[in-house]
Each structure stands twice: as C-alpha cells, then as structure tokens.
C-alpha cells in the first residue's frame, strides 16, 4: 500500500490487543513500549467509543521506555514493571503487549514472560508493534496469545460441553456496540438452550477463556473471528459456523435454525422462540408505520463501518425495512479473498437496484464516496457528520469513532438490536424532519 491514509479509524495492532485484554475481567495489560502508546490508546481509541473509556486517565501499566532502553535494550525495565504491576494490581492474568520501539530493539519478551512464570505469576505476552498491522491484527495477536499460552499456565482441559458456544469476531470498542451486541447474541443462544461463552465484557473472565476447548462450536460473526475458529479446530477439533456479519432481525432466526440443526437441538423449542421474537419485531414494525410514512423513512442510505456491521445493518434495512443501500463503505480491510464475496452479497440486497460497495479507510475518500452517492440518510462514524451536514441529510453515528453518543448496553445485533436500530434511525429521521440533528 503506497498511499497515505487520512484520518484512519483503524488504530495500531498494540491497541487492538489492549482492547481485547482490557475487556476481559481480571486481565491486567502491561504495555512494554514508549509512554505515548498508552496515551494514544486512550486519546485515539477508548475515549471515542461512546463511554467505554476507563475513568480518568488511562490506567494501564506501562514500562515507558526511554532512549537508554532503546540503546541498551529494555528487558530489565520490563522485568521491573512486571514486578511492580503484580505487586500493585491484583489480577488473574498479566498480559504484556509490546510496541514499535521495543520490537525494533529486539527485547526478549518471551524470556521476561518466562521469568514471571517461574515466580508463579500468570503472565502471557503478545508481540504487537504498530508496524505489524492495524487494530484487527492486534485482536488476532491477542487472541492467539491467549489460545496458545493459557494452557501453559492452567494445564487442565475439561470435557466437551455439548451446548457451549464460543463467540468470536467482535472487537471490543472497534465495535462501539460490542457489549450490547454480545449480550443479545448470548440471549438468543440461551433462548434455544445453548450456553454462550462470550469471552469479553461483564462477567467474562479467565474462566471463560479456560473453557475455550470445551465448546461444541465456534460462532464467528466477522472475518476477524476466523483465525481463532481455525486455531480451535486444529487444536481441539471444534467445528464452527461462520457468518460474514452480525445477524440483525430475522437473520438471527436463520442463524438459530442452523445452530439447531448442526448441534441436534430441539427444533420445536427453537421455532417457538423464533416465533415469539418475530412476532415482537413485527409488532414494532406495525407501530412504526405511521411515522414511517409521515416522515418519509423509505429512502436511500449510505453506511460506513466494519464489514460485520455493514453486512448486518444494510441487509436488515434493505431486505426487511424497505430502505435502499446506496453507498456501502467497508472500513476494516477484510482479507482479499473475502472481498468478492462481500461485493456480490451486498450488491444483491435489493435486486435491480444499484448499490455501490467500496473498501476504504481513508476519510477523504469515504467522504467523497458518500457525497457523490447522494444518499438521503447517512449511517457512519462521527468522522462523517461533516459530510452529512454539508449534504443536508439526516445522520446517525453507528461505527467507530463515536464522539457524540453514549453507548452502555445498546446493540444492533439480533432481534432486540433490530428494534434499537429502528428507534435510533427513526429518531434521526424524525428529528431531521423537524429541522434538527438527533445526535
């Protein structure tokens, strides 16, 4: 890639790894890098995720290396930092992440981790310099570190549990709605008698990660969940079910049916559950009808986000809600082999209608695509508010970075997420028809 990216929404690998580790209860990340890394993670990432930022300053332990450590090596600084961290913060697991400078110098992180382990501290490490890739790669590196290194700390592997499902591919904070999305996926799985292993978020600690090998299946909801699913298949022969995006609305029902088939669950129970959810969603559609026609909800929209969001949201809006996907911008750089599939899937949402599908993380290119597309509703990140205002069309922030919204447990996945999406888009359209921006 020989061009420079303006206003990128994809931070570096270290930050992707930090995000994963910070979202597992009891895991204490330790940054081994220059002091700017942790600060940048706070300023450039966590603060822009709708209220997922830790209170006050970034409370991440960091070795804050200086020139001296670049010249002579920073391993001893890490040793000291790890020792102090273990002393000051109690955790179930300490996870070292590295940065550009310490990787250039070649500090021996594996050796420092081993020293920690020899003292019976639960320590793992991930080599996560920014130059090794972006936030998505960082998620990969952190997940890989956990899958590979946890068995070295806690040997015991339990029996397979026929109902246990690991959920992969939602990158905390990179998806600002991750908590809500996971909760809903968990609720849906429970609804048909499964036991969700959500791995991140509240109530999810090392115990969840120790259970990884016991799962009956891996549920993958973005391209970024494929690697862990593949690893677990190789290590523990766990099969997986792979979606390209979040299941929103009735797509969730389709997922539940295929899980039921694959895991041999009671189909009657599943149908009962789905029927109840469908009925409720239809009820919401009906209640929305008056506003829908009064404020002219049916219109062309632009959607900018990660592939899992773009697939989930645009299919729901296009197939079930009568909106027209004009410009779809996928910002997470999915692997090349997936792009063709995404393009053909997304361009076929509304047969006979011309949908433009673009892969870009460049702010000015995205702005151009959205502007030229001429959509009458923009669903994007806060970086696209300007083009919405400039084009004079309603706007809803749905993807990272999120500057003007607080997101506590809202999500757009599943049936409840579909309702939430109807509420939020409805509010944005209604406010706009009254001459205002909702958020």
């Amino acid at each position, binding site marked *: 890639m020989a061009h420079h990216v303006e206003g990128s929404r994809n931070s570096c690998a270290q930050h992707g790894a930090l995000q994963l580790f910070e979202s597992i209860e009891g895991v204490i990340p330790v940054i081994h890098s220059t002091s700017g890394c942790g600060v940048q993670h706070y300023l450039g990432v966590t603060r822009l995720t709708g209220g997922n930022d830790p209170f006050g300053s970034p409370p991440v332990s960091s070795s804050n290396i200086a020139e001296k450590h670049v010249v002579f090596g*920073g391993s001893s600084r890490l040793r000291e930092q790890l020792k102090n961290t273990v002393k000051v913060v109690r955790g179930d697991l300490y996870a070292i992440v590295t940065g550009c400078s310490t990787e250039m110098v070649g500090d021996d992180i594996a050796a420092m981790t081993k020293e920690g382990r020899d003292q019976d501290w639960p320590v793992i490490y991930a080599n996560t310099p920014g130059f090794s890739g972006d936030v998505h790669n960082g998620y990969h590196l952190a997940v890989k570190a956990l899958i590979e290194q946890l068995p070295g700390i806690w040997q015991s592997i339990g029996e397979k549990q026929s109902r246990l499902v690991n959920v992969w591919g939602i990158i905390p904070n990179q998806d600002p709605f991750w908590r809500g999305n996971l909760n809903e996926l968990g609720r849906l799985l429970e609804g048909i008698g499964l036991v969700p292993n959500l791995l991140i978020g509240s109530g999810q600690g090392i115990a969840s990660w120790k259970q990884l090998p016991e799962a009956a299946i891996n549920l993958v909801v973005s391209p970024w969940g494929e690697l862990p699913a593949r690893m677990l298949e190789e290590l523990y022969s766990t099969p997986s079910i792979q979606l390209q995006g979040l299941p929103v609305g009735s797509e969730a029902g389709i997922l539940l049916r295929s899980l039921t088939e694959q895991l041999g669950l009671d189909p009657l129970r599943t149908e009962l559950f789905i029927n109840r959810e469908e009925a409720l969603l239809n009820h919401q559609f009906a209640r929305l009808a008056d506003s829908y026609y009064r404020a002219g909800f049916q219109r062309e929209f632009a959607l900018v986000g990660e592939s899992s969001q773009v697939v989930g949201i645009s299919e729901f809006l296009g197939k079930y809600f009568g909106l027209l996907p004009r410009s779809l911008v996928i910002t997470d750089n999915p692997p090349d082999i997936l792009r063709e599939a995404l393009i053909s899937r997304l361009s076929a949402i509304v047969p006979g209608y011309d949908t433009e599908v673009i892969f870009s993380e460049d702010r000015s290119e995205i702005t151009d695509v959205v502007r030229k597309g001429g959509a009458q509703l923009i669903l994007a990140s806060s970086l696209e508010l300007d083009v919405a205002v400039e084009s004079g069309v309603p706007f809803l922030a749905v993807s990272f970075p999120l500057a003007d919204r607080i997101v506590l447990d809202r999500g757009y996945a599943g049936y409840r997420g579909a309702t939430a999406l109807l509420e939020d888009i409805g509010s944005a359209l209604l406010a706009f028809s009254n001459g205002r921006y909702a958020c």
Partner: protein
Amino acid sequence: MSEKTGKHIAIYGKGGIGKSTTTSNISAALAESGYRVIQIGCDPKSDSTTILRGGNDLPTVLDTLREQSKLRIEDISAIGFGGVLCIEAGGPVPGVGCAGRGINAAVELLQELKLFEEFKPDFVLYDVLGDVVCGGFAVPIRDGLADRAFVVTSSDFMAIFAANNLFKAVNKYAPSGGARLGGVIANSILAAYAPALIDDFAEKTGTQVIGYVPRSLVVAQSELYGKTVIEAVPLSEQAQVYRNLAQYIDKNKDSVIPKPLNSPELKKWAREWGDRIFDVETGVVHEMASI
C-alpha cells in the same frame, strides 16, 4: 545541533579492513603537524583509538551513560599521542538493544556537552563500524555531521562491495545536506594488480583514490607496542605514506557525490577483473581471500 568547529571527517570501510589503523595514523600525522585533533570511535567494539593511547583502558560514552546520567568530557576521553583527544562511543551488549541508535545518542551527547566548542579542534575524525548496515550507522554522514567521508578498501571483492554500499548511503544523504565523498583510501596493497583494480572501481563510480597504503610489517609491529606507525617508527616509509594521506585530507577540499554500481553491474565488473587477474598471474586469484 551545536555550531560546527573544525573539519569533520568520517572514515568507513568493511570490517577489519584497516579503518582504525589508518584513521589513528592520520590523526597522529595531523597532530604531529600541529593541529588539534579529536578521534571518535563509532563502533561498539570501542578499539578505534587504542594505538593512540598506548593500549590503555578508556571508558566508553555509552558505558558511562548507562551508569550515570550526568557525565563530563573528562570521564569519557583520554589524551593520546600528540594531544589527540580520544573518545569511544561504545555500544550495548552484543545481541541487545540498538547499536545504531547508541552511536546516535553518543554523538548527540558529545554535542550537548559542547565538546567541539570547548576543545576547538581543527579536525574531528569519526571511525565508523564496518558496513553501513542500517540508518543508525549512517549517522555521521547524515544531517551534515561530517563534511566528507572517506572509504578504506583493499582489492578484496567484499571490501569493494562495502565501499559501494557506502557510496549508496552518501548518494542518498548528500543531496539533503549529508556528507560528500572525499575519496578512496587503498589499504594493504600487496598484489601488483591491486592499485589498478581499485583505480578502476574509483573511476567507474566517479571518485578517486587519494592514497595507496602498502601492506607492511611495520604496522603490525607498531600495533604490538600499542602505537601508531607515526609514533613508533616515525622515519619509516610507511609513516610517510600516512603523512601524505593526512596532508591530502588537510589541503585538498575536493568531494563528490559518487555513482555507486548496481548489483548486476558490480558482479559483472568483479567477474571481468577475476578473469583478467587469472590470465595475467595464475594463482593470485586465491590470495584475494586475504587482505
């Protein structure tokens, strides 16, 4: 950066080719003719100035920096033959940290300590580690720290290869204020064909040879006494060769931006010379393995 005092010269060349020996003898010769000289070894081996100091120990800048944060010039320098101020940048433990950045840090520290303003040298010679392996070792020729770079080479192909790499670095940095190339110093001249081979390389790359230093036992003997040839055997022919080099560097201000050969060109050039040497004096070809 502090204001530059004196002429700053960087000496490069393949490992073991004779950089430190040549640089120290040039420093000694310049000092002998009354100049104030600083020689800075930019090499983690920190043996650049040994033969100027009778082989005594000298703490390196980086070792001292590792132990104490505040340091003075006296802590990290020694006065050698003819008043030459000797400094060794030093480096990390092998396999740890970044030596390139270390040299950077050491040189910056010397500037912070106002070494050049205090000592007021006429010449500062930087003896830089072997091949230009990465940006770190290009420090003395980047950012205009040195005005001119010289490269020491023998007729050995690997030495020529290293010289060509230096030319690439000079070529890259010179247009934006980096050092230009002063010329080539041909060292360890023994074989009859060697001067012609090095001359030809210089011509092909648009530069020139500024002196031919014969391979001589006197050098090894002086080294065993911990001395330069200038100090140990001042009246020898070899001493005169080094004096001539010093004089050239003093009087001649010529410098160029060299035109390095690309790899296929360099390989082709080497093969042609291989054939020629083999034809003329069969057997000499094997001696090329040594300097």
